[in-house]
């Protein structure tokens, strides 16, 4: 009987020939990641355990990105903890402002996470790296602390679910819409404890940026991980970035899946997730009149260069509606520079949008775009929980970048077709 890509990667990292769903394994970890919110707790546990060194100074990655650039004194203290720890333990991959980016855009860009890896991160969106054909999952700070010391972590091997996307993408439909559509179908715990494997001709043709967006939001269906079998698109992305060896795994044809879902591109419009769950989706044609106060384009979900290109293609020559704040956040310094070189930043500023340095800021109501009571935002981020972007009585609607951009122009949620 065959194995899924997830089972193969976990078996190899556990030193076993094969593993089956439900097996408890101790797995080697290729990269262990923490950020300015979660790593301070890990560092506290690391020190309490009396550890003298990290398991590998090149494999622990620390990225201050959530409340950075530091929004207040408390946040500055947190970032200081990371910086001092990185210095004391000679951590190679600590990213200071100016070199930093949103972690889940930064690590793949830097070639730090690669196909076939096992990656854990004390951030729930660590599942993003599954787009490269890696097993990647979010854990808590204490799990991260343990892995920083031992280079290992325990897992229960997850069952895999297969999602096959047939056909072609409609106009304006992106990876974001595919994953929102999927979550809308299965619910926020539809993939609880499981690995979501995305496949089919739409995925085969989807660029890396769109794939990252999809696996990024696997957690929003409760999944342990999201994964895509590596192909030429993956290899093209990894080439020139990888600084160490990696291994390609693929699911066997006769691998076992707990569920198989088949979707067709002809049924999928751009999606909008209404408050207060990512599963509360509607196709753009059924949204109705929803006025907005803020539009956010960015985050680990949609702050990559193709996201900015899509937004700019809509915004070119237009102005943001007078009642709307539009905030554009390139996810990394490199993406920021590409956006400048391609003239995208000019388009945003001419449209009277704000362009920020990389930060997770507004996505979690941290800074750089917090909502007041009763305010409503359309956002390319990943969560629309109560109070997620600010006041508990504010609202967040999730969409792709082109929909967020066009909504910013009209002042209400709309399809990009409405402003062309």
């Amino acid at each position, binding site marked *: 009987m065959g194995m899924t890509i997830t089972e193969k990667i976990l078996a190899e990292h556990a030193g076993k020939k094969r593993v089956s769903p439900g097996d*408890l394994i101790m797995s080697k970890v290729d990269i262990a990641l923490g950020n300015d*919110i*979660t790593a*301070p*707790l890990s560092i*506290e*546990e690391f020190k*309490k*355990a*009396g*550890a003298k060194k990290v398991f590998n100074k090149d494999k622990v990655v620390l990225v201050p990105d*959530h*409340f950075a650039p530091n*929004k*207040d004194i*408390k*946040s500055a203290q*947190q970032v200081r903890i990371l910086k001092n720890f990185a210095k004391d333990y000679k951590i190679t991959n600590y990213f200071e402002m100016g070199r930093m980016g949103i972690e889940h855009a930064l690590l793949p860009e830097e070639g730090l996470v690669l196909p076939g890896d096992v990656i854990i*991160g*004390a*951030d*729930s969106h*660590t599942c993003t790296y599954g787009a490269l054909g890696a097993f990647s999952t*979010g*854990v*808590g*700070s*204490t*799990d991260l*602390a*343990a892995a920083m*010391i*031992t280079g290992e972590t*325990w897992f*229960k091997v997850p069952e895999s679910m297969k999602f096959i996307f047939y056909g072609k993408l409609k106009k304006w439909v992106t990876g974001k819409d595919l994953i929102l559509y999927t979550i809308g179908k299965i619910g*926020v*715990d539809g993939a*609880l*404890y499981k690995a979501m494997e995305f496949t089919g001709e739409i995925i085969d043709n989807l660029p890396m940026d769109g794939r990252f967006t999809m696996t990024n939001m696997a*957690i929003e269906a*409760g999944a*342990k991980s999201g994964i895509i079998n590596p192909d030429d698109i993956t290899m093209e992305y990894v080439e020139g970035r990888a600084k160490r060896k990696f291994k390609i795994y693929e699911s066997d044809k006769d691998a076992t899946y707990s569920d198989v879902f088949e979707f067709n591109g002809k049924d999928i419009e751009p999606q909008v997730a209404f408050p207060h*769950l990512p599963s509360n989706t509607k196709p753009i044609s059924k949204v109705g009149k929803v006025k907005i106060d803020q539009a956010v384009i960015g985050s680990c979900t949609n702050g990559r260069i193709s996201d900015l290109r899509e937004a700019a293609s809509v915004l070119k020559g237009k102005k943001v509606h007078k009642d709307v704040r539009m905030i554009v956040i390139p996810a990394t310094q490199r993406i920021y520079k590409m956006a400048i070189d391609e003239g995208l930043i000019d388009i945003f500023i001419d449209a009277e949008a704000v362009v920020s340095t990389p930060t997770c800021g507004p996505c*979690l*109501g*941290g800074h750089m775009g*917090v909502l007041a009571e009763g305010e409503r935002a359309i956002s390319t981020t990943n*969560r629309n*929980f*109560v*109070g*997620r972007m*600010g006041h*508990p009585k504010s609202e967040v609607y999730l969409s792709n970048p082109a929909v967020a951009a066009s909504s910013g122009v009209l002042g209400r949620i709309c399809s990009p077709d409405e402003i062309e």
Partner: protein
Amino acid sequence: MKLKGKAWKFGADVDTDAIIPARYLNTTDHKELAKHCMEDANPDFVKKMKGGDIIVADKNFGCGSSREHAPISIKAAGISCVIAKSFARIFYRNSFNMGLPIFESATASENIKEGDEIELDPSTGVIHNLTKKEKYQAKPIPLFMQELINVGGLMNYVKRKVA
């Protein structure tokens, strides 16, 4: 030791932003985090709850972020355990690592009403509703997780390995 307290009911898909809003995550101080426990789901919760009280929720409790601040704030607020139909996976893992007892029971989740007096035996998973004089059985904790608890949580397990 048995856990005993009054039930506080919450619905389905209670997310980590409701348990501890991100705006308070610029600290790791347990007492500070406890002050804002469940604030966006029930603003009066911390004021009204008493030490030992029990959170009873529907499915998928703790979904969303990986923030360990969520189980920390619940534990530091004095809640003795959480009972739910099901838990989101990172929250489940974190709770064991933090030493916050959590129990899965659909019947308990459905039948317990807010304010009911609850007594729970962690070793057997038997939940007593003293108000309604009912008994429910929680799912047993997986053996591996019990071992983690027995050695005193994940970090003690790691310490043994390092030593």
